[in-house]
């Protein structure tokens, strides 16, 4: 167990604002009963413990978001394909600036070209994105982009900056969006008390209030809004492009792989990038930004691997696309 439920909480803490960051801070102070740390936690330094506590909250939000995307789209469960995706993704992440984070990869059963980075390291790539890649280097660059979002905590930090009111409004908006669809209503996530016990337990710990599971759930819903509609700030997207390309280059891949992936998207697949362009800067601008980075990295001198052979073998075993 991570922690025990608190017995009481000071009034000033309950009223001390509801941004996610304050919920986190308040939680650590309002518990009268100390949590029972696991043996691994006991070995951590105070700085590591603080980082670890924050990571646990981030992970719970990300878990919830990833679970919704997986629930909505469905997943491709081919063990070999997943093994390959995780191998390439983890390998690229090991060349990133945040190798002590955890990165986990899964495939969404959808033919659009998109990928999602949820807080806590849950990275979801559509089957369409895998099909669109011409080689392993392109896949590595795409995964590098998502790894950078996670490592730099782009979404989690954005959520922490949101006030509780905004988070709840975003969650309400999401709920209203599906009211007209009876199928989606059937599949709608449960109310907070019936939802993730871990999330509710965590939020109870954080806020010192029973039944406060809404906070984590609402934060996840707000995160979904950001992930699927609003998008992150475009500067963060450019940063993820830059970092992702750098990680893939460090890992040994061809420097121009991301540019070729994006260029092909722009030329051939306008329909398939509808959702991608809703939340990302225009592809042309992204290509230009990456091009500028490559100049500074002396990319023209870099001999990179394409991973063509490995990718071709994996591609032969891709599941057939479902009929539209």
């Amino acid at each position, binding site marked *: 167990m991570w922690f025990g439920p608190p017995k009481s909480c000071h009034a000033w803490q309950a009223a001390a604002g509801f941004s996610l960051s304050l919920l986190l801070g308040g939680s650590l102070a309002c518990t009268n009963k100390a949590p029972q740390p696991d043996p691994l936690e006991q070995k*951590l330094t105070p700085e590591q413990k603080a980082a670890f506590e924050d990571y646990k909250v981030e992970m719970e939000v990300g878990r919830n978001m990833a679970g919704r995307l997986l629930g909505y789209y469905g997943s491709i469960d081919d063990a070999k394909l997943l093994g390959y995706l995780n191998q390439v993704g983890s390998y690229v992440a090991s060349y990133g600036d945040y190798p002590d984070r955890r990165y986990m990869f899964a495939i969404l059963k959808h033919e659009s070209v998109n990928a999602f980075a949820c807080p806590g390291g849950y990275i979801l790539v559509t089957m369409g994105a895998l099909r669109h890649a011409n080689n392993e280097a392109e896949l590595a660059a795409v995964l590098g982009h998502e790894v950078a979002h996670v490592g730099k905590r782009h979404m989690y930090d954005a959520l922490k900056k949101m006030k509780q009111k905004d988070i709840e409004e975003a969650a309400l908006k999401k709920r209203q969006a599906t009211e007209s669809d009876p199928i989606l209503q059937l599949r709608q996530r449960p109310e907070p008390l019936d939802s993730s016990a871990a999330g509710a337990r965590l939020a109870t710990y954080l806020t010192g209030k029973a039944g406060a599971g809404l906070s984590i759930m609402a934060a996840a819903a707000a995160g979904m809004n950001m992930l699927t509609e609003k998008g992150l700030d475009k500067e963060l997207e450019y940063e993820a492009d830059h970092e992702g390309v750098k990680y893939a280059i460090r890992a040994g891949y061809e420097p121009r792989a991301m540019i070729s992936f994006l260029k092909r998207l722009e030329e051939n697949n306008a329909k398939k990038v509808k959702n991608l362009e809703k939340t990302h800067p225009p592809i042309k601008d992204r290509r230009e930004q990456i091009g500028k980075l490559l100049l500074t990295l002396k990319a023209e001198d870099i001999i990179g691997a394409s991973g063509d052979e490995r990718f071709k073998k994996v591609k032969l075993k891709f599941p057939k696309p479902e009929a539209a």
Partner: protein
Amino acid sequence: MKKILMNQCLAVAAWLAAGSALAAHVEAKKDGVEVFADATNKSAVVTTLKAGETVAAGERKGMFWSVTTTAGKAGFVSVLVVKHKPDADGGLVKAINFASKEGRAEGDGTDARTRSAVMGVRGLSDDDNVANAANIRPNLRAVYRMEDKPVTEKKMEQLGQQIFKEIASKAAPSED
């Protein structure tokens, strides 16, 4: 109590401000690895490294890593003669891996699994609005499957070897 709260917040804030970005190292694969003054093997040799010797690595520049030796000498080493090693915080990595098991919902997500199995997964066309995913019951079982597939160091090393083998084979014809 307020002081504890403040300290905890400061600790988290300090960690966030630092961004937890870590440096990396490279390890010489053989004796006599040359550290060049610039990112070209035509520049002066600053020093050499012994097999297994590790130096701090910075960014890649062309086919070289920028490095700083333990003696403080800066230079560049070819990516083909060293092994890149990330400086992950081992203690934190273990704790994070442990946390992913501990934080699971009671019942291991079986309820969510059952529900989605009954309803099936609806086929989605390109016209579907992904925003609707926000109101779907999380499929925790699928998330746990993600968490249960860690990639071993060995697997990553194997891939790295194949990648640098490909690079070496591409680089070989152009070397004098």
